[in-house]
């Protein structure tokens, strides 16, 4: 693609882009490096070691982190599955069902969790569960997570559905397929990349949430972010840096997966 001459004159832009990447990555890279530090002082470099990773799995705090990790992953998988199902149904309605009453309001509602400030959602959820006498715990975390995962699952699913032409489904319906059959046998297979990428994003969003979880978790129930927050409040320790690096790795793997799947879906078109 030909680049117009006048655009090349914004020469500083390349440098700013590198600066932007540097700013975004430097703190993460530094924490990752120091998580391999052998020294007991967290900043003085004492040589390479995996001892803090061993500590995460076998040290005195290991049971706490293990339970928190199990909670985190269970909730994230459950919430992501629920949010993906809800979002897929919603995407079909918004992209394949023509006009109907309440369509605009529905789109606003799906995006509402993105608009309400997280702290407000957190407080409101706590107040709600207490008012209706719902015991706060794993289930309340799960329910709250499903809600804010819905828009994150919806965005890639709906985007993908917009880019999948409906002619195959129409052909299927012409051949007397029911709407459900047309969905299951024609649209769904074409939607796989979008649905997977929506699921992965919802999963990461749930795995990462601290603020809402912190309000609705109930006493004694921890997820990884709330456990990490509790520890960090007493000062940053090397084992926290190791566990952060592990979690960072999980995020990177999932984003990369989502990216690769998304690209695969695009190139197939």
């Amino acid at each position, binding site marked *: 693609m030909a680049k117009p001459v006048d655009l090349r004159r914004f020469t500083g832009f390349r440098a700013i882009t590198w600066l932007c990447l540097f700013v975004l990555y430097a703190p993460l890279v530094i924490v990752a490096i120091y998580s391999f530090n052998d020294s007991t002082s967290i900043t003085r470099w004492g040589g390479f070691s995996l001892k803090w990773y061993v500590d995460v799995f076998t040290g005195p705090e290991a049971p706490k982190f293990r339970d928190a990790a199990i909670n985190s992953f269970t909730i994230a998988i459950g919430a992501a599955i629920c949010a993906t199902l809800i979002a897929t149904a919603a995407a079909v309605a918004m992209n394949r069902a023509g006009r109907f009453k309440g369509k605009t309001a529905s789109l606003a509602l799906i995006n509402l969790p993105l608009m309400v400030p997280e702290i407000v959602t957190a407080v409101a959820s706590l107040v709600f569960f*207490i008012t209706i006498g719902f015991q706060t715990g794993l289930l309340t975390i799960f329910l709250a997570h499903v809600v804010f995962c819905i828009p994150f699952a919806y965005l890639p699913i709906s985007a993908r559905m917009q880019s999948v032409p409906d002619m195959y489904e129409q052909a299927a319906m012409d051949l007397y397929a029911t709407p459900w059959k047309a969905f299951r046998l024609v649209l769904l297979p074409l939607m796989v990349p979008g649905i997977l990428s929506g699921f992965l994003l919802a999963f990461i969003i749930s795995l990462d949430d601290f603020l809402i979880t912190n309000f609705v978790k109930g006493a004694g129930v921890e997820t990884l972010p709330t456990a990490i927050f509790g520890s960090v409040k007493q000062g940053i320790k090397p084992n926290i840096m190791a566990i952060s690096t592990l979690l960072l790795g999980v995020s990177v793997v999932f984003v990369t997966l989502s990216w690769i799947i998304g690209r695969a879906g695009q190139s197939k078109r």
Partner: protein
Amino acid sequence: MAGGAPAGASNSEIYKGNGPKLLLPAWVFIGIFLVMPVGIMAVYSFLTKEFRGGVIWEFTWAAYDQFFLNRGLFGDEPPSIEWTYIGIFWRSIWQAGLATVLCLLIGFPTAWFIATRAAKERSVWLFLITVPYWVNLLIRTVSMKFLIRDTGPLNEFLLALGVIDAPLALVNTNFAVQLGLFYSYLPFMVLPIYAAVERYDFSLSEAAADLYASSWQTLRLVILPVVKPGIVAGCILVFVPSLGAFLAPDLLGGAKTFMIGSLIEEQFKGAAGNWPFGAAASMILLTIVMGVLLIHARAQTKGER
């Protein structure tokens, strides 16, 4: 990604009549677990506080009164405006606004640069910007705290270079909070601007150049109006979460850098334990945010006409 949807797809009516049915789960979930909670919280803001958390079901304006009016230590003086909480909101708005401007200064050139690369290169740059966006915000904030600690790598590095003689006390300052907000929400600025620039038709720039416009004139008069929706969206995506941020002020700031998020949190989880007051502060925050979004929506529909 480029090109958008084929015109036919969005006009499809294959599942005609099933729209409301398919949307029912979304309505039920978001209705019960978000809309209703916010409604109940609005009610809470008019209730009487119970000591050590909770509420008594007696309606009162006390929470809003406490927020806006100062009636003296014993509550019997003529009311004057209470500046403490308005001040906290003002500082939050200022910090969020500043973070937005800084993100725009770095984010716009970045988005522009990426959007003007060749398609293959573009997706790699975009991927690199997106990854930190998905890394846990808590971990990112902790990383920033680790980096700028008094004895952290940044200070060690500057000391070793001889730029400074004594470590800079960065943590627990407004500067640290600002840095945290900027760092947390920078990708939120880049992505929507990128999307807008990607759609920009560069033959417009060529036309401007043919008509002897300088590159800055082209930027200001031709490009900016086209990519403005992306810029506005980016600004909102940075401003709104910054305004209600909790982690950056809590971990990077101290008592002196209180923001709305910390104020609300303290009412429910901390020592203050005044739920109606926390609910009232949440309602005021929600009103500000919804106001910003409403102005944005209005401006957008106006622009489309």
